[in-house]
């Protein structure tokens, strides 16, 4: 396979169902979950892969964290064999602690705070691209539903911010991965944040509980939808929709087809 494809395969950790299902070159990845089947583990996995990207150039990542403090991600990823503290020190990981975002001035408009946040992210991406790092950069948001709370419900402002982040993906060889809680929006009328995200996504990964209820060996099912973007180098095995079961462990996750678990 061509060298670029090799790099991509290495980047995504070839060998498990999730990486097979995820077409290479997806720029906007939307991860959906619900209370019964949380999917933060998918973000952890993608973050580990983003930072582990080989091929000399190395990858980089910016994590916009509203859900958890740094110590949480650090401990979780450490159990998965990825040292976030080290990556943060070497500036391959840029951690934005947004637990208190926007914070400070109560009078300032959320649009301004989001604009400032975007500028900071853009600077980080530009700096990384300017260096010898020709590898893929990943901007990750955990999670968009909390960003909407931070924006006091102004979905328009959040969407503007997300659209700006999407422009980064086309201009800067960068991908955007966002987590959103699907069950918050499924009861709403009208076009909300979720519908917009699904529209702009290249790839949608959705976690759901099993219809049969709880099981000790299976935590839920994952569906991966490749939304028909042109995949330059790697044919996605002709398959648009993948569906399989998962089990989350401290050091990662297992993906398997129903009934094939031993």
């Amino acid at each position: 396979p061509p060298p670029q494809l090799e790099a991509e395969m290495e980047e995504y950790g070839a060998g498990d169902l999730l990486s097979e299902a995820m077409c290479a070159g997806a720029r906007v990845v939307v991860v959906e979950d619900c209370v019964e089947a949380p999917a933060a583990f998918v973000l952890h996995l993608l973050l580990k892969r983003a930072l582990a990207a080989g091929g000399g150039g190395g990858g980089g990542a910016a994590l916009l964290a509203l859900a958890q403090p740094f110590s949480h991600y650090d401990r979780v990823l450490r159990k998965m064999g990825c040292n976030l503290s080290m990556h943060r020190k070497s500036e391959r990981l840029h951690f934005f602690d947004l637990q208190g975002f926007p914070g400070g001035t109560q009078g300032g408009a959320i649009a301004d705070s989001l604009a400032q946040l975007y500028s900071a992210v853009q600077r980080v991406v530009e700096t990384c691209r300017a260096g010898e790092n020709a590898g893929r950069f990943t901007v990750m948001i955990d999670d968009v539903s909390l960003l909407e709370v931070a924006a006091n419900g102004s979905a328009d402002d959040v969407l503007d911010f997300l659209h700006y982040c999407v422009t980064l993906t086309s201009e800067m060889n960068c991908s955007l991965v966002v987590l959103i809680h699907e069950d918050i929006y499924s009861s709403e009328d009208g076009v909300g944040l979720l519908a917009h995200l699904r529209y702009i996504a290249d790839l949608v990964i959705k976690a759901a509980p099993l219809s049969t209820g709880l099981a000790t060996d299976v935590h839920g099912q994952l569906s991966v939808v490749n939304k028909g973007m042109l995949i330059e180098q790697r044919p996605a095995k002709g398959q648009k929709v993948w569906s399989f079961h998962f089990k989350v462990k401290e050091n990662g996750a297992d993906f398997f087809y129903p009934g094939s678990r031993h």
Partner: protein
Amino acid sequence: LSPGRVAAPPPMAAAATGTGGQTLGRSSFSRAASSKTASSSSSPTASGVKLGPNGAAFVSSGIPDLDRILDGGFLLGSVVMVMEDSDAPHHLLLLRAFMAQGVVHKQPLLFAAPMKEPRSFLGALPAPVASSKEDARQRAMGGGAAGDGRASDEGLRIAWQYRKYFGDERNSNAEHRDNKQEFSHDFDLRKPLERHLLNAQHIECLSTQDVDTLHDLQNRSSAFLSKHQRKEGGNLSAGRIAIQSLCAPQCGYFGKDWDMVSFLRSLKAMVRSSNAVAIITFPYTVLSDSFCKRWQHLADTLLSIKAIPDEDKDLAKLLTGYQDMVGFLHVHKVAQTNSQVPTQVNMT
């Protein structure tokens, strides 16, 4: 949940234990000595805090059975949310046990409720059942002295209920004679907590009724939590925040959905970096589905309460002790420290 006594074992269960080598009654069923996990073997500090793996620290919910189901208790630094049953006040049982447990361990408490005089609720806090436990122990010792423990055979049944197994672990806690040394207590809802304990405490009360913003509650919570910042190797003094019916219609800010969810988000962040636990009950039926989901996602530990109807013949056939039960407690998710593995507890 049973009226009258919270998580009280029947006397015969208390007798059928193996504390200090006193095994009463003979039976073909013999329970392997419960293996002590790291958390249960470390004796609780005087402040009622128990350490667990992964740097976790727990305080008791005030209901020993619930602590066991949650694998230790309420995690310090977490937010517990309880979905109320709209027809019944059973969530108050949880709150009373939680607050009483904190008072017994001299842990500072911040209590907010949609009532004119939240401080009056303190009169409803239950007293620990230390005295009745003493009786049970004496009965047990008396039975052992008889040699064959014939009296306790009446307590043995072929179909063991899980509660009787829990009795083993509970009585190992009873080795600590001093009330304060115990991590968790049983509370007798028929007896109020002694007045002098309440007066000696750091208990702050705040009314959320007719208050049209959450700013005050947020500021008070922030001030409270700043006194319980987590320090490396520091003295583990725990704090408790109890908020009753946060989105109740009589709250002045009712209907300001984004303000409420914003408050929850900031409270969660403040609690995370502290040595405190916050428990928040809420009548979820007054929220829209969408916001109810937002609240559920914000919870670290999520419980819900469902009242059991009286005179339900089908349930009576299904459940032993149906007459004593007032409700179901459903555990949806349980707080974890620094882990991505979901809890497979989900039980009712």
